[in-house]
């Protein structure tokens, strides 16, 4: 991860806890990788095939559990550093005794959206490979999809909405509901902004972790930038107006 990126995270109030959360995610991913290589979970050349090739036995359930665990760890590892601003917003705008609860409810909703999305993306990528398309062809296809999506106005609109800092109720169910809704909608907009890029590492057979780190660094730099006009853009051009 570039030093400037880490520094940018650390400058924000919630930077250190989020960086620790991210490291935890990476640790879990590494641990899972020890048991079943992530490329197999993500791209399912072995594990995922058992999800839809009946009968789903004990091994299949294990693969499903691993998939969900790996997806959750991937959210923690790659998305936590992007959440410094929302976490600060939740912290500042909640009563002191409700702060942890606010952060927990937001995180629950946000992680749920992403975990489901990543699991579905992994299944889809597995399906693609199951058709007999080679790793390189699949990667080229995913790159083309990502480049196309990155250039669309819809993608920029989603990214802009990741910067929303909505009203949060202070008391009771209204406060809980607002935190859950904030996490859920943030998760959806974040998926809209990042799904195509998150697909890429699933097709990188070697250097899977490096690919994930590179995507995370890109997303982190991009998230530091202010919102931009919604229009067609050159894909991956972060700094244009």
């Amino acid at each position, binding site marked *: 991860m570039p030093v400037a990126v880490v520094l*940018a995270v650390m400058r924000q109030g919630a930077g250190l806890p989020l960086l620790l959360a991210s490291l935890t995610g990476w640790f879990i991913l590494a641990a899972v990788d020890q048991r079943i290589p992530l490329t197999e979970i993500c791209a399912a050349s072995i594990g995922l095939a058992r999800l839809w090739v009946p009968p789903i036995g004990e091994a299949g359930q294990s693969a499903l559990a691993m998939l969900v665990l790996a997806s959750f760890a991937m959210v923690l590892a790659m998305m936590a550093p992007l959440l410094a601003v929302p976490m600060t917003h939740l912290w*500042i*705008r909640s*009563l002191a005794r409700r702060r942890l609860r606010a952060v927990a409810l937001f995180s629950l909703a946000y992680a749920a959206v992403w975990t489901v999305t990543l699991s579905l993306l992994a299944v889809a990528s597995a399906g693609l490979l199951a058709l007999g398309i080679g790793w390189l062809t699949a990667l080229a296809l995913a790159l083309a999809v990502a480049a196309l999506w990155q250039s669309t106005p819809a993608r920029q609109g989603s990214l802009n909405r990741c910067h929303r800092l909505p*009203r949060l109720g202070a008391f009771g169910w209204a406060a809980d509901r607002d935190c859950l809704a904030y996490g859920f909608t943030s998760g959806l907009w974040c998926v809209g902004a990042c799904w195509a890029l998150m697909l890429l590492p699933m097709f990188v057979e070697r250097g899977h972790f490096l690919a994930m780190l590179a995507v995370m660094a890109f997303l982190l730099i991009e998230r530091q930038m202010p*919102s931009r*006009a919604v229009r067609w853009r050159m894909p991956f051009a972060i700094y*244009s*107006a």
Partner: protein
Amino acid sequence: MTVTRMNLWGLGNDWNPTMLWYARAVRDLQTRPITDATSWTYLAAMHGFDPDLWQGYGYIDSTTPLPPAAARRRDWDQCQHQSGYFLPWHRGYLAAFEAIVRDSIVKQGGPATWALPYWNYNEASNPNARTLPLALTAPSLPDGTDNPLATPFRYGDAGDGTVDIDPSQIRLGALTENDFIGAPSGGSPGFGGVPTTFNHAGGRNGMLESEPHNNVHVEVGGQQAAPPQNVGLMSMPVTAALDPVFWLHHANIDRLWEVWLKRDPGHANPTDAAWLDGPTGPGVRKFVMPDVAGNPVFYTPRDMLNTQAQNLNYVYEDTSDPLVGARPLAQRALTLGLAAALPPAAAGGVTQPAELVGANDAAVQLGAAPVDTRVRLDRPTTARVIRSLQSITAPGAAAREPDRVYLNLENIRSESGSGSYSVYVALPEGANPAEHPENLAGTLSLFGVRRATLADGPQAGNGLTTVFDITNIVDRLHMSQALDVEHLPVRFVPSSNAGPQQSVSVGRVSIYRQAQ
């Protein structure tokens, strides 16, 4: 050579040489094409640019060639608001403008000592201080030609073209703030604003930026009372610098920075490198201004600290203290009935983070009529505020300033560019707000709100947040045993006659405490 920026009204209510040369230079700049970095329009676009609005006012049309996109990305839409960079960025902006105007004046045979005057609307000894002198309103110059300093798009508070600022909107409480940089946590946003990166629109107003700065913008620009109810140039950041009075208003804001530094030995500019050398970060824009030849010159806040340094070279005619030594701690001790003044916070002490005390239940929609809302208070947190107030009168208690209390108006949104509301706290039931200036928390001004409301604008439509220090109001309620520990009523009263025609919403009205 160091030049002196003079008091606008002190120059006289006539065509004095300073204003006559200003008019001639503005006319010269206005003849230059927008592609020229020293033109009137290019310089105004550096503050903010909106092609649709500019076409509406007739400054450009759909065929006007604009500067290259790269130059626009580097230079335009640069003004720093809702940010601790508000003062240093505008200082650089004014200095560049002043140098370009002076260059034009000298080329026309005028004095090389010309300096931008400042409009001191707080000048107590001048009953006309809150209006504009003849040079900014007369239709023509002494030679009969059109006056470039007068614009038809300056509507004033009443919407009829008359500028007469409401004195309740230009209070100078910001000068009593201890810290230049505040915290974006619901407590004091500081004299100069909160830490940000490059921040063009949206976020949390600093104290000086909120009042008098924002309020003067809207009081001068206003909105036309008669159809088509145009919004005045000064009311919106994307058009403000097209009005020649903009520069005189900002000279005064810049002067108040010097006044703040001088009025209390404890007041000082930030010393951290992040502010001094900012803004920094991957892909973050830098501050840049054209020199008199139109070449870009980059700068940082560090370059803006000494007005007499080579790159700035000016002083103000008057930087005396308009509050004549008033100290908030001494005033607070009086309100709280203490025999001795409260001790100042230890130098270099850490500012405590603020804590939410309560909030209202739903977003508030504002319109042309007064609107009431209630801030529900959290009992345990309110009890902490009350304990801190009681602690100073307890026998043997160590003298320490009690909590300060702040009203936050969060996520202020509107598609209208103009309008303002007086915000009252704890008004007695059925009371006429005008008869209770002691309950006036501050003025919610819509300067900058329009762009901060755009969902795809730089701040994703989060709107603005304005913070009012209501410590004195809470102190008085406490002393008169009238502090309701359950709720605090807040009333919004439209304060400009040509009030906003479109709806304004305040996402949340909240109260924060900040331990001292």
